[in-house]
């Protein structure tokens, strides 16, 4: 029987300000670029200006002759370094050799060609301008559909069809469903390429100590341990001689859930020159060389009965992969397929993915990774079906949810939705906007010529990655809890929080379980020499998988505290709470600090008990978690200019138990901001020569604080059986629910003009044209 704790005041569930904030707000946090070391050198990377070209020759002499330049390395120098790893495996996947510097050919603008190393960063930057590369430009292709056409330029000459893989998934009897359907709705829907644009770009400092053969890599990453394993392999280093430290990370959004050429390259350089070396990615490089997100062209069909019952779903998904596979590139669209039925009872589904090489930077996980695309697709299709059937879009959705009693619900794509009551958040959101009144207001507005629309989306999200068999590198998470001899508590988590706030939420969990003050707890992460192996922070997993690991470690620790308490109080009737053990008979107490001291001093030990107070738990989740929710957007399009105004934004999410509502709101707000970015303004545009023409913040339009609508949040709570904390992830939910609600509202605003669908982003010119041409784009 575990220790019973009488909690006096619980912290879980409270709006507690982040422990991280003081250092972040006062500018005293340490990012990679803040790291200084004696003798540190600086690297700058020369990158391809061409989408595709053969390298005829490279002359590094003028650069190397420059005072202060200590080395220049090119492709032939790095033969011994292993390829940039792709962790995803699919049957028949074609994996191009991905060396850390280009060899005889470049495949996208930004492809690293050479690295110059100098005594300061200015000299290094000047040096790359002196490297002479003789390129023979080749035809490039940037549009994935064009890349599939016969005769298109081959990105990799060995695979002229530009097809990296095809992937088929089927459930139920889709052909039959479409044959029997009373109505079939079809639409081509795109989810454009996006640039994750974390405020802090990537950066690496590598420090090699040749006498010890130890390499320390400081990197702005979401996955310190996986990075160590994989970079050690690339460099042929013993893994235990490599240390990865993740200092403060200024945003990742999936773009730092990766192993990049530069991380191994800096390790290589440090080993070659015997000096520490720093590389900080410029904003321009961040646009050109850090992974992009999305990049879908989807062809959807849904089959239904006239009464609105959905029967079947067919999807042809074209994924723009870019020129190479980064860590998870080919896996991302498979998540879209898994989630393609959304929250609806599609019993018959069929999907085919074509993964296409283009002369662009690789796509990979970006906030939502595959699920925003899937949600956007199905939620647009539900609206198209509602339009076709002249049904209310809310009613159509409510009609097709599995009932509360049908959980765990097995989907036609083979997932088991753990728990849910999908009508609950939608009904709550409808109440929050006073839906019927709102529809009347819309009718009045339209009668007056105003273009007002109401958009609904519901989403289900696969998160808490994930059961290990379903993930490329293990899906468990780890935690260690130590009570130090002074009684202070140290938590080590294998997750790698970088803005999510687990230093706070994990302290709340530990404080409640141990009954100690949050101020006595510190949460450490992101150093492979301090923290036991862990998987990292991505896929809305840290609290949902790392949280339970911590919870179980705390239970082990509490059992041990109790044993010491019983020994020290000389009683077998002891309760541990409020930072002390109490003998229930005598009322005598002993503080954790004294117990801790005694456990380390170890003059006497309880039977079968080791000295010290420390517990480690590796937790393997039995399933993913599937949070869900509903977003409603009210928007109005300016008839004269095509500008969209978001008048109301309502987000109701069910992520079950909330550890810190302040942080959950923050995740929803940030997620919605990125969803609005995709819906309204962001787009990575490559021209026909595969030049990125939105390659700076002057052209790539991000949402800004001043353009954000007020977001009204609400929650429903449907208990989840997946983990003991009853939590699901919330990091990506806002993004996933957002874009279809926005687009649905704008299509709704223009539907009387005959508009059925608009691809993102909803730029003002695009909408203005639709209004002017009466719906004909």
């Amino acid at each position, binding site marked *: 029987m575990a220790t019973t704790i009488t909690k006096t005041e619980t912290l879980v569930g409270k709006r507690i300000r982040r422990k991280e904030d003081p250092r972040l707000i006062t500018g005293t946090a340490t990012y990679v670029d803040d790291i200084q070391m004696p003798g540190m050198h600086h690297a700058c990377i020369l990158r391809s200006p061409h989408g595709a070209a053969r390298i005829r020759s490279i002359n590094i002499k003028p650069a190397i002759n420059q005072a202060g330049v200590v080395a220049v390395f090119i492709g032939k120098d790095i033969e011994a370094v292993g390829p940039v790893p792709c962790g995803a495996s699919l049957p028949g996947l074609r994996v191009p050799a991905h060396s850390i510097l280009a060899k005889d050919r470049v495949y996208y603008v930004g492809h690293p060609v050479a690295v110059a190393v100098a005594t300061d*960063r*200015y000299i290094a*930057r*000047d040096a790359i*301008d002196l490297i002479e590369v003789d390129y023979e430009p080749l035809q490039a292709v940037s549009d994935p559909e064009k890349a599939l056409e016969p005769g298109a330029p081959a990105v990799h000459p060995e695979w002229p069809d530009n097809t990296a893989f095809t992937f088929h998934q089927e459930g139920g009897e889709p052909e039959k469903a479409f044959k029997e359907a009373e109505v079939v709705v079809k639409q081509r829907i795109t989810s454009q390429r996006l640039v994750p644009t974390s405020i802090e770009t990537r950066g690496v400092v590598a420090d090699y100590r040749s006498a010890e053969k130890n390499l320390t890599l400081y990197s702005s990453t979401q996955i310190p341990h996986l990075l160590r394993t994989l970079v050690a392999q690339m460099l042929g280093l013993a893994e235990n001689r490599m240390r990865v430290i993740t200092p403060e990370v200024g945003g990742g959004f999936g773009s730092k859930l990766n192993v990049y050429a530069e991380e191994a390259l800096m390790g290589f350089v440090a080993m070659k020159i015997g000096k520490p070396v720093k590389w900080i990615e*410029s*904003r*321009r490089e961040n646009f050109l060389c850090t992974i992009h997100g999305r990049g879908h062209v989807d062809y959807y069909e849904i089959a239904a009965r006239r009464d609105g019952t959905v029967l079947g779903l067919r999807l042809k998904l074209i994924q723009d992969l870019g020129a190479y596979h980064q860590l998870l590139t080919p896996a991302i669209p498979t998540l879209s397929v898994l989630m393609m039925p959304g929250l609806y009872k599609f019993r018959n589904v069929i999907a085919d993915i074509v993964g296409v090489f283009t002369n662009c930077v690789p796509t990979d996980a970006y906030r939502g990774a595959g699920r925003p695309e899937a949600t956007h697709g199905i939620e647009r299709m539900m609206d198209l079906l509602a339009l076709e059937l002249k049904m209310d879009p809310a009613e159509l959705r409510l009609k097709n949810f599995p009932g509360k009693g049908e959980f765990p619900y097995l989907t036609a794509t083979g997932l088991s939705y753990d728990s849910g009551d999908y009508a609950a958040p939608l009904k709550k959101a409808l109440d929050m906007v006073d839906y019927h009144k709102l529809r009347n207001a819309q009718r009045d507005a339209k009668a007056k010529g105003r273009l007002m629309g109401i958009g609904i989306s519901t989403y289900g999200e696969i998160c808490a990655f994930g059961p290990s068999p379903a993930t490329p590198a293990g899906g468990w998470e780890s935690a260690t809890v130590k009570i130090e001899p002074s009684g202070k508590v140290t938590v080590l988590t294998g997750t790698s929080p970088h803005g999510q706030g687990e230093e706070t939420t994990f302290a709340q969990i530990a404080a409640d379980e141990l009954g100690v003050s949050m101020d006595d707890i510190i949460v450490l992460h992101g150093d492979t020499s301090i923290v036991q192996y862990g998987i990292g922070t991505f896929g809305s997993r840290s609290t949902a998988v790392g949280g339970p690991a911590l919870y179980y470690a705390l239970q082990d620790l509490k059992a041990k505290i109790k044993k010491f308490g019983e020994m020290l109080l000389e009683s077998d009737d002891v309760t541990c709470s409020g930072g002390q053990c109490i003998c229930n008979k005598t009322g005598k107490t002993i503080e954790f600090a004294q117990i801790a001291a005694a456990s380390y001093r170890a003059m006497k030990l309880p039977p079968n008990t080791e000295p010290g107070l420390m517990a480690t738990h590796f937790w393997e989740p039995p399933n993913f978690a599937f949070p869900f929710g509903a977003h409603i957007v009210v928007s109005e399009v300016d008839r*004269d*200019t095509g*500008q969209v105004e978001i008048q109301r934004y309502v987000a109701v999410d069910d992520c079950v138990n909330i550890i810190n509502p302040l942080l959950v709101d923050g995740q929803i707000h940030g997620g919605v901001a990125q969803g609005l970015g995709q819906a*309204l*303004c962001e787009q990575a*545009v490559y021209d026909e020569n595969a030049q990125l*023409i*939105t390659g700076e*913040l*002057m*052209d*790539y*339009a*991000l949402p800004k604080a001043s353009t954000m609508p007020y977001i009204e949040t609400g929650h429903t709570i449907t208990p989840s059986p997946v983990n003991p904390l009853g939590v699901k992830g919330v990091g990506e939910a806002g993004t996933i629910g957002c874009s279809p609600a926005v687009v649905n509202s704008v299509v709704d605003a223009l539907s009387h003009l005959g508009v059925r669908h608009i691809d993102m982003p909803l*730029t*003002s*010119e695009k909408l*203005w*044209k639709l209004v002017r041409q009466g719906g004909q784009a």
Partner: protein
Amino acid sequence: MIPQNFEYSAPTSLKEALALIAKGDAKVLAGGMSLIPLMKLRLAAPEHVVDLSRIADLKSVHEDGKGEFPGGALHLGALATHFEIESSALVRSKCPLLAEVASNIGDVQVRNVGTIGGSTAHADPAADYPAGLMALEAKVHLTTAKGERTLPIDQFIVDALSTALKPNELVREIIVPVETRGTGFSYQKLAQPASGFAVVGVAARVRKSAGKVTFVRVGVTGLAGKAFRATRVEKLLEGTSGSAADIQKAAAQAAEGVDANTDLHASADYRRQMTKVFTARALTQALSRAD
């Protein structure tokens, strides 16, 4: 994003600055909001950067009763920041259009350091000031080590990123008229969603008397390589009663005969149409403010 090597001087007098730039291949630095990004992208690589920020002479904002305009003039030192112009009590009361234009530039950080001299000298076709300066028929006071001259704004700006400035010459001040009582004004802008610059921006000034529109000035930025005065619009509206229909009819001419810019954010066609829409909006607001 590191610029090429350059020499840097920060003179404290105008004379010193003029002597330094007379030596050749020098670029002057005001707020740096346009120059520094260009240098970081290595699209500009001056050998010598002469920082004007310590020259007190260039910061003055004052009124001059006689001056360049019959009703008096405001002299805005080249180094006056967008924020100073936006918030100056003098500018707000004597030339409120310019304060309104300034308040539409970029964000707070940019307005805190960017200057009117820098913006005017840079002549970005999407910058906001030129629309206002055209509508105000402003003058640009230039100086070299040898002498001074004053040019009307539409002669100073030659084309996109190109002005009448000689290599050894500085913008010393921008001169705008003290606004006549009762003049209505407005600046209306469609912002480019990424940079915040104007896709189109229209500045209008109007006066009314006895139910008739007696005076109209319209400056347009963003549409063409160079900001311009929409004189057709002005003529069409002058003498009318300024009704909604009059405004629409006049505004419809705002983009007539103009070779419109086109880019990712707005096609030439859209820009033209938006020029009409924002001209109408600017005129409508200006008229509502005139009395």
